[in-house]
């Protein structure tokens, strides 16, 4: 086998880059991290003519001057010649129906000096629009190999793979010579960093601070040189961009011929007339959301039930067939349920990403962003914040990762901060059991189900929690950064199902491995805390219970339950629960709920399982009705009435709606903001708000 080849894919957003990437690599994709930056690095491999090729998919960008987190990676990566995966070849993907603008990025890329192939996509759309492109003339004018690719059927793919292996080198000729802008500084930087190319040196001066691989002294060296040679970055960038466009327009004159305006654009205009209409626009958006939520919760349900049952079965099998001992207990009660807690969300995550991928592929998502920008702006957010907020209904983790294309730092931080307020799927089991416990099953106004209305109220509570927190944060955060909104509205087109399918697959995989690690670790810790306790009381639980409750000696099952709950009470988890009891008493909670609060800090859905254990319901028969019956029978030791009153239920639901009880989200926030400040603030703010609101609810309705 020959040596592996590295290629990098660059291109404008919506240029069809992802389709080319998916065509090349299929399911052989993985997500890693760029060194030094918090960005996912999507890469994949394929074999062609016995040569292994690594393909790296870089974020979509309009130029190599970055504006968002996403784009910052592009130049950083393309200018570090010493990186181990520095590309041998670059593939620039350009949308043929919009060639002029797409070629700006291409012209910058070829000036970086690496062999570059130009891939043209959407030729079918261009032809329908009456645009004709002379490929041979294009190759000649731009001094590059041009390969047209059909993103739907993969036509041209073989030719691209051959060309990637082709080692005949092109003669390098700068497209635009930046020496006309700043002749002095380029040789200085070239010598200092031993660079092979003028444009790379010029870019070191333009983008000194976004480069993670330079040391502080090196950055200072460039900064000093910039002052010395009077380097005016913005002015130069303006001149450079205008000049590049001039050259591109000149060259394209003989390459592109236009005949007539046609139906593709007319169809988009007609659709826009309806989809961005004053009234229908919002109605359609609401309908889309409704269908999406319905799908996430209804369609995912049977799959989630199967997974739930499957893992319960697995737990039982482990208990049955493995030799009894601590290790088996850990596997059956800690690891398997922990894994189940991760896997159970796959159906919802997959469905959510299926919807989001379809909305994005079809071009509708850009319209949603366009429709909501003005409303979101009032709350310190941005049209682009709508995507994370919607995704947050399934899970905050992928939602927070989706904030990366928000250019403004302030808008992005606010979006990250408030997204966990959106009621994620992990809250659903908690809501479900509490609602069925304290809200009567009756109709309101003849048609609405009161339990359903309560659930909707809780979702709205989360949404308004997010919106108003954004408003507060907007007032507090003093940043002199411009927020702007300049975005392409792509043409409407049928989604490519291959892309949708690959998105579902790869996002679900990322979720399982990223969140899974943390949730698994927490479940093991919890199991240890709940299974061990200090001193004799825990060790001799059986003897002690038999002593205090001699009447149970005939009933083995009742005795076992009593021992289990006695054990829990005296375990480390139980001791923790009791220690926070004074704090949570005003909210109406006792130490048993306290344990559930502590354990579910890691992940909310743990609440139901913990409650089930606390009220001595055997873990292997996680039957909801039995949990419910036990909860219903629970007596409040102070009042003598039932423990789970309307006030307590409401207080708990509000607490779970607001409190930041998700270790994985905190970990992702830390990863995305690169600072402990934000997750800590988020934890304090959300939990504080949850406490106060739950307190008010309980005290008012008690």
């Amino acid at each position: 086998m020959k040596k592996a080849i590295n290629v990098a894919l660059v291109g404008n957003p919506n240029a069809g880059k992802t389709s080319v990437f998916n065509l090349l690599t299929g399911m052989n994709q993985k997500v890693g991290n760029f060194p030094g930056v918090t960005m996912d690095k999507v890469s994949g491999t394929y074999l062609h003519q016995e040569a292994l090729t690594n393909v790296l998919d870089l974020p979509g960008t309009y130029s190599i001057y970055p504006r968002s987190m996403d784009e910052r990676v592009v130049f950083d990566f393309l200018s570090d010649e010493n990186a181990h995966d520095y590309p041998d070849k670059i593939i620039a993907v350009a949308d043929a129906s919009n060639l002029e603008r797409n070629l700006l990025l291409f012209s910058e890329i070829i000036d970086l000096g690496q062999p570059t192939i130009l891939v043209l996509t959407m030729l079918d759309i261009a032809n329908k629009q009456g645009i004709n492109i002379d490929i041979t003339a294009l190759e000649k004018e731009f001094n590059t190999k041009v390969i047209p690719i059909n993103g739907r059927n993969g036509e041209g793919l073989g030719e691209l793979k051959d060309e990637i292996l082709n080692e005949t080198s092109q003669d390098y000729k700068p497209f635009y010579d930046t020496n006309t802008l700043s002749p002095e500084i380029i040789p200085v930087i070239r010598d200092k960093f031993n660079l092979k190319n003028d444009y790379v040196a010029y870019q070191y001066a333009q983008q000194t601070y976004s480069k993670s691989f330079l040391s502080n002294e090196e950055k200072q060296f460039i900064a000093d040189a910039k002052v010395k040679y009077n380097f005016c970055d913005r002015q130069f960038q303006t001149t450079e961009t205008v000049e590049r466009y001039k050259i591109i327009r000149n060259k394209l004159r003989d390459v592109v011929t236009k005949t007539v305006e046609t139906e593709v654009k007319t169809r988009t205009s007609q659709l826009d007339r309806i989809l961005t209409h004053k009234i229908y626009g919002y109605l359609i958006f609401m309908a889309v959301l409704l269908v999406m939520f319905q799908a996430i919760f209804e369609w995912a349900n049977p799959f989630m039930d199967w997974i739930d049952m499957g893992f319960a079965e697995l737990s039982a099998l482990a208990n049955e067939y493995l030799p009894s001992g601590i290790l088996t207990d850990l596997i059956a009660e800690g690891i398997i349920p922990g894994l189940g807690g991760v896997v159970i969300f796959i159906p919802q995550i997959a469905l959510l990403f299926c919807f989001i991928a379809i909305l994005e592929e079809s071009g509708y998502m850009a319209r949603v962003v366009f429709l909501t920008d003005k409303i979101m702006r009032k709350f310190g957010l941005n049209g682009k914040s709508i995507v994370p907020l919607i995704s947050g209904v399934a899970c905050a983790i992928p939602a927070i990762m989706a904030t990366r294309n928000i250019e403004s730092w302030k808008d992005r931080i606010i979006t990250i901060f408030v997204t966990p307020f959106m009621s994620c799927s992990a809250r659903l089991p908690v809501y479900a059991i509490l609602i069925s416990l304290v809200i009567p099953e009756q109709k309101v106004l003849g048609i609405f189900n009161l339990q359903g209305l309560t659930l909707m109220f809780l979702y709205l509570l989360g949404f308004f929690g997010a919106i108003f927190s954004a408003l507060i944060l907007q007032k507090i955060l003093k940043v002199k950064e411009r927020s702007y909104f300049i975005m392409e509205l792509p043409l409407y087109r049928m989604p490519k199902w291959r892309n949708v399918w690959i998105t579902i697959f790869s996002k679900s995989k990322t979720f399982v491995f990223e969140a899974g690690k943390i949730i698994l670790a927490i479940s093991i810790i919890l199991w240890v805390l709940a299974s061990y306790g200090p001193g004799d009381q825990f060790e001799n639980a059986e003897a002690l219970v038999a002593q205090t409750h001699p009447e149970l000696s005939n009933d083995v099952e009742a005795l076992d339950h009593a021992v289990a709950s006695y054990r829990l009470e005296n375990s480390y988890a139980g001791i923790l629960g009791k220690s926070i009891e004074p704090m949570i008493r005003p909210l109406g909670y006792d130490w048993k709920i306290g344990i559930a609060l502590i354990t579910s800090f890691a992940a909310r859905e743990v609440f139901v399982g913990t409650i089930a254990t606390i009220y001595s319901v055997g873990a292997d028969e996680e039957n909801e009705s039995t949990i419910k019956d036990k909860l219903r029978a629970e007596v409040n030791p102070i009042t003598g009435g039932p423990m789970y009153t309307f006030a307590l239920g409401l207080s708990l639901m509000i607490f779970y709606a607001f409190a930041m009880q998700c270790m994985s989200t905190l970990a992702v926030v830390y990863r995305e903001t690169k600072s402990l400040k934000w997750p800590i603030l988020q934890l304090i703010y959300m939990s504080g708000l949850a406490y106060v609101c739950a307190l008010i609810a309980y005290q008012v309705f008690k």
Partner: protein
Amino acid sequence: MEKSAADLTPGQKGMVKDFTDEYISLKLLEMGVLPGTEILMKFAAPLGDPICVEVSGYALSLRVEEAKTIILS
């Protein structure tokens, strides 16, 4: 009073002359909004902001505030 891209009504065209804001203009230039380019106002979002214009053969959305920085001749 100079005319800006924000003054166009749907269906109206204008020619880009200059920009009043350096930071925004860099982004606009990259997106193909160049001096001498024709800009066609297509439609506004339901609340009047942002707006959608056609420029260099594609649909570009931007806020009214940003459209104000594009001076037309």
